[in-house]
Each structure stands twice: as C-alpha cells, then as structure tokens.
C-alpha cells in the first residue's frame, strides 16, 4: 500500500501570504483570522476526475484552437511542456492542466481588458490537456507579452502564463503562474515577490529547453509542476475512517 494516507501539510511559508501589501488588491481580500487546520477527511482526499471525453484533442494547441483556418497568431511560437509530479517525486497521470494567457502584445481576450495592446484575431488564449501516464503535458502557444497593470502607477507584469491543476484530491487544487527565464520584470513584480523564498520563485520560472525545440519552427520552455504528496498508510489511521 502506498500513498493512500493524508497529505503532507501545506508549507504556508513557501506559498505567498494572504496579505502582501505591495500587491494592493490583497489588502482587502486577505482573511485576517487564522485558517482552521483540518486533518484530512474523505472530503479532502477525494476530488474531481476528468477523462478524454471532457476535452478535445486540439484543446492544447493555442496556435490553432482559435485561429482561422490557415492562419496563425502573431508572436514567438513556443512549446510549453513539463511534468506534473507530487512531493514524493511521483508522476500524477491523467490530471487536468488548464492554462490562460495574454497574447504577444500583452492583451487578454476578455471583455474587462481594455489595454492598448491589440487583440489578435487568431489567438484565444486558453488551453487544456490531460497529463499522460508519466505525468507529462504539453501545449503549443505564443510567448505572451508583458503588460502594465493598475497597482502602483508604473507596474508591469512579467510575461506569464496562468496554470490550473487538479491532482487527484481537492486538497491538491492549485492555481499558479509561470514566468520565463531571464525576464528582468520578475524581480520587480509585486505578485511574484509576494513569495518570500527566492527558491520558491525559481520553481515558477520556465526554462528554455533546446532539446524540445523543433528546429526552424518552434522554441521550447519546460515547466514542471509539483502538487502535494501523501504519507504512506503503513502506520496511519485512515482518514476515511476504519
């Protein structure tokens, strides 16, 4: 029997705190009372499952999933790929990974985004895929542009892609953002820098992966995702009851 026990406690010092004053919106949206710590029950160790009937094969190709036939979005063509693992370094197969992003000029296809950067008629900006048996996923997309946002008067988000992952349990549910190696805006961004530990920030930086590029076609970045891991049940009370 392996990995059927409780999840390792989430390291709240590794994640950003709820209140990160330089990210102004967090000031009024952060609970001030302590979280109540809950030992895992069936409600936390279960979670939604998804299958190939839920999505379509082309949903992970942002170069084509919104483009007119024969046309392409403008921007640097990239492959974004990696693995979803747990804290025990084991792959998480068959889990849903969803992404969303701005286009190459830093504009989101969203009715609430009014940035000057132009919409791209051939770019929607979202994709989704299930990890394979070894926890691998991949997308094709364009590298998103940096854009200004209302925080301090001259704040710019580094190029980033939003990532949502499920795992096998509601306790593993995670949304994060990935950044790109070498971006000078990373150390200036109050959202990134809400994370105190520089090693934790490093985990959010996708690395150039020359081995995964397609010569004369598409450059590649690698981004591995780690979800919470579980204790073995060798000496455990079973959270779902005996």
């Amino acid at each position, binding site marked *: 029997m392996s990995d059927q026990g409780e999840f390792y406690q989430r390291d709240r010092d590794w*994640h950003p705190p709820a209140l990160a004053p330089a990210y102004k919106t967090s000031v*009024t949206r952060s609970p001030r009372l302590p979280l109540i710590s*809950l030992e895992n029950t069936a409600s936390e160790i279960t979670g939604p499952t998804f299958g190939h009937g839920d999505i379509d094969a082309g949903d992970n190709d942002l170069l084509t999933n919104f483009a007119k036939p024969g046309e392409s979005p403008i921007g640097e063509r990239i492959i974004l790929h990696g693995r979803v693992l747990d804290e025990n370094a084991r792959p998480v197969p068959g889990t849903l990974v969803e992404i*969303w992003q701005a286009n190459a000029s830093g504009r989101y296809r969203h009715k609430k985004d009014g940035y000057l950067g132009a919409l791209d008629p051939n770019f*929607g900006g979202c994709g*989704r895929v299930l990890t394979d048996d070894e926890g691998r996923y991949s997308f094709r997309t364009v590298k998103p542009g940096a854009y200004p946002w209302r925080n301090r008067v001259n704040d710019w988000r580094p190029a980033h892609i939003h990532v949502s992952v499920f795992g096998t349990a509601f306790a593993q549910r995670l949304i994060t953002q990935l950044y790109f190696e070498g971006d000078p805006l990373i150390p200036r961004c109050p959202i990134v820098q809400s994370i105190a530990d520089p090693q934790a920030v490093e985990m959010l930086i996708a690395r150039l992966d020359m081995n995964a590029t397609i010569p004369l076609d598409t450059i590649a970045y690698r981004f591995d995702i780690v979800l919470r891991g579980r204790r073995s049940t060798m000496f455990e009370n079973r959270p779902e*009851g005996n």
Partner: protein
Amino acid sequence: MMRPFEYLKETPSQTAGPYVHIGLAPGAAGFDIYERELGWDIAGPNAGGERIRVEGVVTDGTGAPVKDVLLEAWQANADGIYAHPEHPGEVEDGFRGWGRVITDFETGTWGFDTVKPGPVPGRNGRLMAPHINLWIVARGINVGLNTRLYFEDEAEANAADPVLNLIEWEHRRQTLIARRSERGGAVTYRFDICLQGDGETVFFDI
C-alpha cells in the same frame, strides 16, 4: 544500499488574477472556444435527492462584492458518496459532484444548481453533517481559500459535526451555515462569504 528520500517542494501558488474566466470559463470572458466548458453541471440528470440552488455574494474587507471571483464546489451525492475511485460506493451515472461558477459581473452574485449531499463518514468513522466543499480564487487572493457550506435545516447533524466542532469560537460556526428559503417549490440556500473583517468566514487549512 539506502537511497535518500527525494522529496520535492510544492509549486507555490499565485493569484488567479482578474482574467481567470479566459482559462476556466471562456464563455464568460466573451468568446466561444471549447465544445464543452467544464463544471456547469454538478449533479447530472440522474442524481437522487433534493434538487437545490445555492447562491451568494463574496465580499471584501470593505464590504464590497468581489465581482471577479471564481468558486469551485466539491460534494458527495445524496447517499454521501464522492465520485472518486478511493471512495467506496457508486454514484449515479452523470454525477460528478464538482462544479465551477463565476459571478455576475455587475452584482457579484454567484449561484449553482445541484442536489443536497448526504452525510459523509469522517475520521474514525464519525459522521460529518452534509456539506459542500468550496474553493475560492480571485484577483488579490494569493492562495485559493477553502471553506465548507453546511445546511441550516441539519441542526442536529451540524451540532455533532466534527469539523464545525473544531472551530473554537462557536459564533464563527454560523459563517458556514447556509440559510434555506423556498419559493414556489424551489429550494435555495443563501451562502454569503466574507473574506475579511466583521463576520469573516471560517477558512480552512486542509
């Protein structure tokens, strides 16, 4: 030879931001892209039990509605079974028990239709009162917030619920109780969530 354990650290969370709809509910962002958006049908057509609607508003520390919030719900069926391979028992065909909702951009009201879940065995076989697990993300929320919705008309089960009883401040348990109303035979539970300040909702570190 002993190999050292190789533990990894969890990927740190970042806010879902104001444009979460593009990825998770693109229809609401203003464009059609997927054949099937996920999470709009929690219970499916075959689920037994009482059909209910859950509605609410999420407010911030100033009392203003949070209009760019996204919530996910995770619940058992009316027999107290989760649609998950580790949970013993079968659920009805089409019952997923998971849903995803966003707010009305003008008012901040969110709502979903489902069935009322049954009690679920908790730790050491102690029964948990019927509840829906909620996960809340938005711009300004750096790590998704976990809470639970319990039902007003389950007073006896709520009083015995091991999770509600963990909350030392008894008056704060009320923040997790949804209020029942009936209009023309339709049952609605009202569940407002307060992120901060007076009446702050209880959030859990699960």
